[in-house]
């Protein structure tokens, strides 16, 4: 095993079978977190197998040769821990947080199911029903229905064009053997990253990891994703009609990948427009009432809320601006106000003071986003999958190098009418029938 101490209390290692490990000691609380990252997500899917990555994720909890389905959850809970997993565009992640002296239990469970998950036919069939239920639950939300249409319209070539949960027809048609073969292809030490953070001695934890994972055999390299989304040449629009009397507006712009030179200026632009987001996949962030779009839309009485989302991804994804249209207002009025603000950035630029505020906000959000072992393990693993750990550790430093001119350049390059997919959800139950 090759081990390197790389600063910030971070240790990186690579096992001979290709497994990458990143560890950080945190002695704040007697807690430790493990996250296991597989380089497979909806990005690796295509028509006919949409949702398969997520289905595999569910089946990883249905038992292994060593642990029954019941025991996988029971052992974590009875030891005071929590566990879960999620599937994303670029990866699938499993995580456990436990009292620090129980971390080896999580290492045992995860090492076992990396290669020994059972995939019983009955379990596969039952989870198909569970996932169809999950999809229906999302469909209850107008924002999901609108988002699914926007992604499909924004991407003509790249697999980012479908929702992670997949289409119901694919979920109905996939077989146990399809799902199992997918698991065998992508779940292997050479396609995974382990991130651990918490109250432990890093040398001890690396030894535990080597003992449990070192014997696992690597798989043939996973097929690369070759799809490249061609440039968009004009505005696209989708309209979803549905229940309720509330309208929603989303503007989705093709945006650079996380490692692109424009990415940090885009982070600053988003903070100026909508306030700095919590650097978490699970929400967060502070109040957002003094940002440009909030002042124009919410204070102006056009929208009940507005938010921006710039997701760091392997391939170019989307920057989205979302607004809930205020009762009594029309979606077109809100869209016009958004464009007016975007035009203002392009025309008048942003001030140094706005940029400084964005940096201070981001500094605070970085602090808030990394206070727990779970979030540290998350960010270390995430960064290693997207780029490497320095993507996160140098985040603030790189943001501080962004100039007001950089922000305007990014606005001019990406926030254009030729690069947008505009999505409108129109509630059909308005008393005045205006929808």
């Amino acid at each position, binding site marked *: 095993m090759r081990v390197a101490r790389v600063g910030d209390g971070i240790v990186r290692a690579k096992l001979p079978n290709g497994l990458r490990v990143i560890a950080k000691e945190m002695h704040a609380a007697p807690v430790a977190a493990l996250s296991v990252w597989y380089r497979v997500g909806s990005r690796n899917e295509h028509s006919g197998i949409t949702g398969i990555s997520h289905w595999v994720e569910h089946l990883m909890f249905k038992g292994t040769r060593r642990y029954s389905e019941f025991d996988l959850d029971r052992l974590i*809970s009875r*030891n005071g821990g929590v566990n879960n997993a999620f599937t994303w565009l670029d990866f699938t992640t499993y995580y456990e947080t436990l*009292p620090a002296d129980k971390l080896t239990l999580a290492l045992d469970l995860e090492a076992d199911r990396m290669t020994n998950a059972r995939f019983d036919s009955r379990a596969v069939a039952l989870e198909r029903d569970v996932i169809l239920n*999950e999809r*229906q639950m999302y469909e209850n939300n107008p924002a999901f229905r609108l988002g699914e249409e926007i992604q499909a319209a924004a991407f003509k070539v790249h697999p980012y064009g479908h929702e992670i949960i997949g289409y119901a027809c694919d979920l109905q048609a996939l077989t146990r053997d399809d799902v199992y073969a997918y698991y065998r292809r992508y779940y292997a030490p050479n396609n995974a990253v382990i991130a651990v953070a918490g109250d432990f001695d890093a040398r001890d934890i690396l030894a535990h990891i080597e003992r449990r994972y070192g014997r696992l055999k690597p798989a043939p390299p996973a097929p690369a994703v070759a799809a490249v989304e061609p440039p968009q040449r004009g505005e696209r629009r989708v309209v979803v009609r549905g229940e309720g009397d509330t309208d929603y507006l989303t503007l989705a712009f093709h945006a650079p990948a996380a490692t692109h030179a424009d990415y940090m200026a885009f982070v600053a632009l988003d903070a100026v427009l909508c306030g700095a987001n919590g650097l978490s996949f699970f929400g967060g962030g502070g109040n957002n*009432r003094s940002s440009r779009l909030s002042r124009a839309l919410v204070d102006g009485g056009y929208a009940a809320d507005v938010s921006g989302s710039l997701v760091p991804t392997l391939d170019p994804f989307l920057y989205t601006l979302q607004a809930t249209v205020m009762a009594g207002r029309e979606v077109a009025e809100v869209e016009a106000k958004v464009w007016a603000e975007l035009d203002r950035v392009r025309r008048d630029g942003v001030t140094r003071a706005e940029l400084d505020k964005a940096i201070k906000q981001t500094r605070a959000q970085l602090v808030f986003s990394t206070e727990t072992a779970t979030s540290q393990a998350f960010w270390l693993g995430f960064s290693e999958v997207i780029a490497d750990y320095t993507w996160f550790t140098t985040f603030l430093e790189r943001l501080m190098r962004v100039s007001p001119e950089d922000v305007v350049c990014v606005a001019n390059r990406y926030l254009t009418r030729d690069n947008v997919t505009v999505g409108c959800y129109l509630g059909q139950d308005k008393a005045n029938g205006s929808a």
Partner: protein
Amino acid sequence: MAAHRAAYNTPTHRSRPRGQRARSRARLPALPHSGNVTCFSLANGVNLYVYANPSSPSVVVNGYLEVGALDEPSATKAGLAGFVADCLMRGTQRRTYAQIYEQIEAVSASLSFCSGMFTTSFFAKSLAEDLPLMLDLLSDVIRCPTFPESEVAKERAEWLTDLHERATSTSAMCGLVFNALCYPEDHPFHYATDGYPETAQAITLDDVRQFHATFYAPAGMAIVIVGAVKAEQAHDLVTAHFADWSAARPARSVNLEVPPIAERRRKHVHIPGKSQTAMLLGRPGPSQLDPQWLACTLMNSVFGQFGLYGRLGERIRKEEGLVYHIGSRFEGGLGPGAWNVYAEVHPGTVDRVVEIVRAEMRRIREHKVKPAELDDNKAYFVRALPLRMETNEGIASQILNMVRFRRGLDWLLEYPDRVYAITAADVQAAAQRWLDPDHYVLATAGPEVENGASSAEGFSVHVDDRR
């Protein structure tokens, strides 16, 4: 006021993620207890609790005022307490709305209020260096709001938009119907704390100003501060901002007794365009002041929480694949909130899910929990404590609960012994007292009721077609 919607492309989880847990960077000296939580009482009734976490870079201020929906004058003003809380930050004698948010957001802090039935809670988080600013703002907006007419109008418009959105949320509408079925019309819990479109329209600016002038007062206010702050510094700041507040509020007199549910009540809210049905099945439960509370929560863990949703998860998700998410909870606080089972299910399987839930209710009432299962749940309760204390928010929340529910500040020290003292008979007694498979309320909201689903045996079915 407006609900924050998740980005539309959210990670797809194997199970619904649990709430954010606590965060901090300092080595925690110990569980919070009377020896490490410094308490101060101001002469006007404000109580301050400080837990120093010196190496944490952040600080959290969490607390409550004794004002809430119980103080609303009538059902025609439902939502008034919440609306007043939402309007606090719309302008004060010293700051405009824009200045308040500019100051908070310039340092990426957060400050928010949430009004419930009994109390109005506040939560602030900032870098430690910004604590003086946050306490200044907190005091300013609580004590000196001016409720400018134009700003209150904007807040009302946001409130109305939220209520419009609520009308198409299956889970929210299910909750409204559930409470209306559980509690009679003369009980405060019958009504939504966030009001109704008609009450949102009817509440006047005078109502807002009058409510604040009458009920916002220091007596009984609790402030918990956790983070990189010394107790004396926190005390000095709180004294400077709250000690000269001398308002008094009238005493509260409400009857919260709930008549028993003596039959099965069922109601469905039809929301066209939905794929799934939200359901709540349950009945009124205990308050957290009930001596049986801990045994109740342990019983509930066995029933619908432990691992992947306890026995309900084993039977309904793992064995039958009928749901993505199901669980049970006690909602009681200072008053008798409900116990209920919550789930989102395919419309055609509601009755099957209800059937299994009732069978599991019978099982936990009739048979003592086996020692291994009880031991698993007790171990979970006790061993999970460190995870709840990992952050300043988590510690503040634990201290606030000890204060709010009058448990004493050594509750957590005694907690393991209390948990391990609970017997299988205690769990069974809790189930027999609060879970009743034959007398309960079932609320559903979603697509049209399918054939057969509305004719469950023994029910009087009300289909509330809203359109």
